[in-house]
């Protein structure tokens, strides 16, 4: 890492948090609808993982706004998608949970828990066959590791020594069910241990996440096969904005928030990279302004035209012929 990258990461974290709060605010106003899963509290993890996995394909879940922006998708195109507008990254057809940008090797945006892991395995197979070294990263939560798709994928990725990074974001909650009530142990990396190299990392420490992902990708690039990283994080909000988070005590939430990834990274920025208060403020203001502009852009963007309802169902359109 260098100062420039550290500043960029801080910008993306602050941007991410402001973006999520703006999304929530606009959800309350009725501008954003459907399911909205906020990544507040996990910004350090999301930004660091994406920035560390500089090249290569990324498959993620429905809690992906910050990851998409860290991959270079314009905040305004993400916000417009949340608003369901024609200028959204998926033309208003995907919404919050389905952000895709193949030109940035970012494939969403999958809302079937575990459903995207086999896709990432297949993509890793393709990259291996094509002789590409960068590999694929698949991001999922702790709840996903209890499902069949996850276990099938560990097995196949390890059998073929695929260039695949399994990145588990363990925030200890599958919607409202604590990991203790859904799995026999807290550390989900134990499930991957027989198959591949595993790492555990403090997901609230962006620099540690960055280093671990870099090291894992290097391992993949050297042809050693898949790697599993488990990052322990903390989700500040409910599962989605319709979840009041009532199942977690104030004490638990306070403990959680004491590890705030943005405060922590800001301190590093000041102490390690010697950023001045002015420099930091400039970054924060820039992030705030970008979010405000994104909301304005989304608000002023047009609705999709009615005829797009039938577009892009198929590559080759063929209407059923009714006489």
């Amino acid at each position, binding site marked *: 890492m260098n100062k420039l990258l550290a500043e960029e990461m801080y910008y993306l974290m602050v941007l991410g948090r402001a973006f999520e709060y703006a999304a929530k605010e606009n959800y309350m106003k009725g501008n954003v609808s459907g399911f909205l899963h906020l990544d507040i509290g996990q910004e350090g993890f999301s930004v660091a993982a994406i920035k560390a996995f500089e090249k290569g394909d990324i498959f993620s879940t429905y809690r992906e706004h910050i990851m998409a922006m860290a991959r270079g998708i314009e905040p305004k195109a993400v916000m417009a998608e949340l608003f369901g507008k024609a200028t959204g990254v998926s*033309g208003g057809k995907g919404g919050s949970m389905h952000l*895709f940008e193949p030109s940035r090797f970012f494939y*969403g945006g999958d809302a079937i828990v575990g459903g995207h892991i086999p*896709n990432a395995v*297949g993509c890793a197979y393709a990259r291996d066959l094509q002789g590409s070294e960068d590999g694929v990263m698949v991001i999922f939560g702790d709840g996903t590791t209890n499902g069949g*798709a996850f276990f*099938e994928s560990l097995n196949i990725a390890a059998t073929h020594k695929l260039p695949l990074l399994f990145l588990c974001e363990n925030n200890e909650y599958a919607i409202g069910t604590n990991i203790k009530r859904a799995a026999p142990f807290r550390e989900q990396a134990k499930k991957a241990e027989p198959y591949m190299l595993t790492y555990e990392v403090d997901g609230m420490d962006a620099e540690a996440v960055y280093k671990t992902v870099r090291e894992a990708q290097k391992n993949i690039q050297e042809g050693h096969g898949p790697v599993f990283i488990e990052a322990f994080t903390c989700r500040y909000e409910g599962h989605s904005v319709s979840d009041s988070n009532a199942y977690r005590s104030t004490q638990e939430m306070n403990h959680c928030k004491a590890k705030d990834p943005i405060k922590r990274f800001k301190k590093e920025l000041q102490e390690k990279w010697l950023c001045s208060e002015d420099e930091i403020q400039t970054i924060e203001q820039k992030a705030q302004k970008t979010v405000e502009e994104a909301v304005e852009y989304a608000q002023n963007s047009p609705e999709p035209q009615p005829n797009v309802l039938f577009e*892009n169902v198929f590559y*080759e359109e063929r209407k059923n012929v*009714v006489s």
Partner: protein
Amino acid sequence: MLYREALNRAIDEVMSVDETVVTLGEDVGLYGGSFRVTEGLVEKYGEKRVIDTPIAELSIVGNAVGMAIGGLRPIAELMTGNFSLLAFDQIINHMAKLRYMSNGKLTLPMVVRFPQGVSKQLAAQHSESYEQMLSAVPGLRVLSVNDVNYAYHALKYAILSDDPVVFIEHELLYNKKGEVDFTQELDPFKARIAKEGSDITIVSYLKMLDDVMLAVPEIEKELGCSCEVIDLCSLNPIDYATLSKSIEKTSRLVMVEEDHKTGGYGTQIIAWAAEEMFYALDAAPLRLAGEDVPIPYNRKLELASIPTPESIAQKVIEWGRKNDV
């Protein structure tokens, strides 16, 4: 050439010219394919492109989706229709929807193929038909051909198509003999007139079409009429133009299918005829389908659970007499 050889030839030809084409599934490689469709391919193209997978259907299709995203053109084989149920999340939530959800940013050039239907005493978990469910999913093309020539052309088209295709085969068709015209240009989405006629339009597809053809001579003899038999070939989209032309000529419609009657595939054809062809019809349509029971093991019970050439002939003749054919 046998039906399975026609399929093999289609895969082989495309794999030989396009190195992005891969095929994956249980025993497709070293074993040669459960029904020998992929026989000889691993020797030609190697284990990297003819991929033996674990018994994990969700992953077979899920990996194929990821391969397609990654720039390959995968052909996923599932051993039987019943096993495809384990992959339904991938087929319906991913393969069919990713293009639309991404507003066309993702393209999924891939094929999922499997055999289905009643073979011989394989019982309830190896004998069912699922075209009715898969044809109801927007984003999927569903091809299901009866004819050997079409098997070659339709599968080749499916592999080269940039859309996801479900290619449904039947265990009892694999050894069917037929001629393949390799020079022909054939539109697999156009229904095939298996037999021309003027008095009754009989619509069917896949293996049932052969049973219809076996029943036709007796129907024609007993009713003193001529039957037009239409092989749908493509179950989604449906070639309504060919159907309506035939019904306008015959004024009578019979639908024959192997899947269960309630909610079966033919409900779509009959519903369409009721909405669009009502005034062209001289009689209420007849629909012959499988009984609403799981497929039993005992041979006599098994045959009683689906239409057979004998039962088709008997029921069409009975219906014809009642309706002045």
